[in-house]
């Protein structure tokens, strides 16, 4: 379970450009939930993810994972419990290393990176199987460098690498935003499949309202650092894109966007 308790975040405190984004922000994500987060630019979606992952420090309040305060943990220490897929397809993989090498790196997460041989050839078949679930034919391209793949292929591998080892949370940061509509659709379906198969708790930030409505078990809309809409269960199942869009437009007009 992930909890944000009375979290506040002030950018540039004391300066003229001081910006208070969160003021006693609260959010609880239960185990097994797949939360879609929507909201206009600057509403604090990505800041929220960064606070959860520890990429940026909080100004106040606490982040709890399974009831334990993780405020003091470094970003890299928190990632031992989480996987993250970024908006930029290049962010989740090593472009100058082959698919096999990338998979081996991800497969070793949580263990020691010592002087033993980098690739465990005994696991090659397993990697092949995992890659074949993507349905992109990557299982035959194990020796191709990641940099030579298209954005969609890279994002698919990023998703696979982020979820290869057991994690508590999957963080998806607009992970389909940089892809063309068809590829985005494929990646979104894959994401849903992976989350269901591995029974992950996931938080997905997206600008695509249709994805937010179609996928996930809970929908959150954020505006100016506050949760203004929170639908889960049956309410979420019955949500329509048009209704969400109406609310979205209303807050956008208020902001003057």
């Amino acid at each position, binding site marked *: 379970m992930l909890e944000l308790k009375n979290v506040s975040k002030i950018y540039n405190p004391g300066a003229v450009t001081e910006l208070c984004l969160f003021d006693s922000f609260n959010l609880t994500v239960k185990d097994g939930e797949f939360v879609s987060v929507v909201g206009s630019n600057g509403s604090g979606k990505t800041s929220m993810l960064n606070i959860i992952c520890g990429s940026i420090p909080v100004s106040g309040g606490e982040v709890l994972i399974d009831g334990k305060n993780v405020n003091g943990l*470094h*970003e*890299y*220490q928190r*990632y*031992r419990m989480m*996987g*993250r897929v*970024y908006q930029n397809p*290049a*962010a*989740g*993989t*090593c*472009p*100058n*290393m082959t698919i096999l*090498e990338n998979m*081996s*790196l*991800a497969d*070793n*997460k*949580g263990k*020691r*990176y*010592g*002087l*033993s*041989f*980098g*690739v465990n050839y005994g696991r090659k078949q397993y990697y092949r199987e995992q890659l074949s679930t993507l349905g*992109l034919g990557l299982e035959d391209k194990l020796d191709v460098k990641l*940099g*030579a*793949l*298209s*954005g*969609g*292929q890279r994002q*698919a591998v990023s998703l696979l690498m*982020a979820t290869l080892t057991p994690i508590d949370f999957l963080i998806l940061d607009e992970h389909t935003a940089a*892809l063309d509509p068809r*590829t985005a659709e*494929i990646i979104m379906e894959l994401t849903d499949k992976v989350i269901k198969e591995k029974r992950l708790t996931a938080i997905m930030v997206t600008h695509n309202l249709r994805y937010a409505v179609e996928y996930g078990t809970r929908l959150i809309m954020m505006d100016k650092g506050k949760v203004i809409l929170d639908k889960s269960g049956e309410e979420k199942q019955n949500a329509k894109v048009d209704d969400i869009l109406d609310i979205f437009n209303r807050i956008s007009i208020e902001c003057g966007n």
Partner: protein
Amino acid sequence: MLFFATTIDGLQMGLCFAVLALGVYISYSILDFPDLSVDGTFPLGGVVCTILMLKLGMPALLAILISFFAGLAAGAVTGVLHVKFNISKLLSGIIVMTALLSVTLALTKLLTRTGLTTTIFSFRSENLSGIFSGKAAGLLGAANRDYMILIIELVFVIAVKIIIDLFLKTKLGYMLRATGDNEMLVVSLGKDSGTYKILGIALANGFVSMSGALYANLFSQYDNSCGSGKVVMALASVIIGMAVFSKIRFMSDTLAVIFGAVVYSLCLNYLVLVDTNGIYLKLLNAVMFAIILIFNDKTSSFVSRRSKLKGGNAKC
């Protein structure tokens, strides 16, 4: 005959600098860290090796291997300055390089003389207690000394190359490559990328020091000024290697870097033939480096354009 002697000299120095270039390959190519502390760690290795040999009477090979650790420590300081104190890459290198100027000077003061009577190539002097027995050295004859130096250097360089190649294939080596390639991924894997940076810079400078020790052995003399210009030399070697030789099929990056170092060193030596007074040497050196960089930029943009064309067909 002068041309031939120059070539042999160039090859000898080139192989010696190949170890330097392999070290800089780790910091510059793998970690994307242009490390300026090289100018300081190169003579540091030389002076440490000389002290070990002259003061403690250590065999040359052992002294060269131990001088690795001197560079390792100095490189770790560069890494810590950059990672833990957020000093920029270039400045942390400059700080360590400057500090090492005094350190090497102080270490030199420990010595009453800097000339080495026995070296790793010691059949070169009258003393034949090097790694070859007197008989073998005698059989090879004095005329073949230069070739023997080349062979010993070659063995040494290949050993270093194989060790680096193997290291880069380990899990730790993969993490080092990932750190230079995409630091975020290392963090995502739950590891502190800073640790790997420090380790990488330390290892790189270890090899640089070893090259400095080998250099002192090659000339049977430690020279305090031997460090100046080594950054440029090493970077040029690595860039030539990566731009020209690594494009050849089945050529590993490390082998390409070795070729780069040898070719660059040969070019330098031929420049000496042209400019006998040595006045324009540094200028020619700089011009040559600039030409290499311009050429390198052309090729890389050509390659990226080509790969973009290829990538256009990739389907997802």
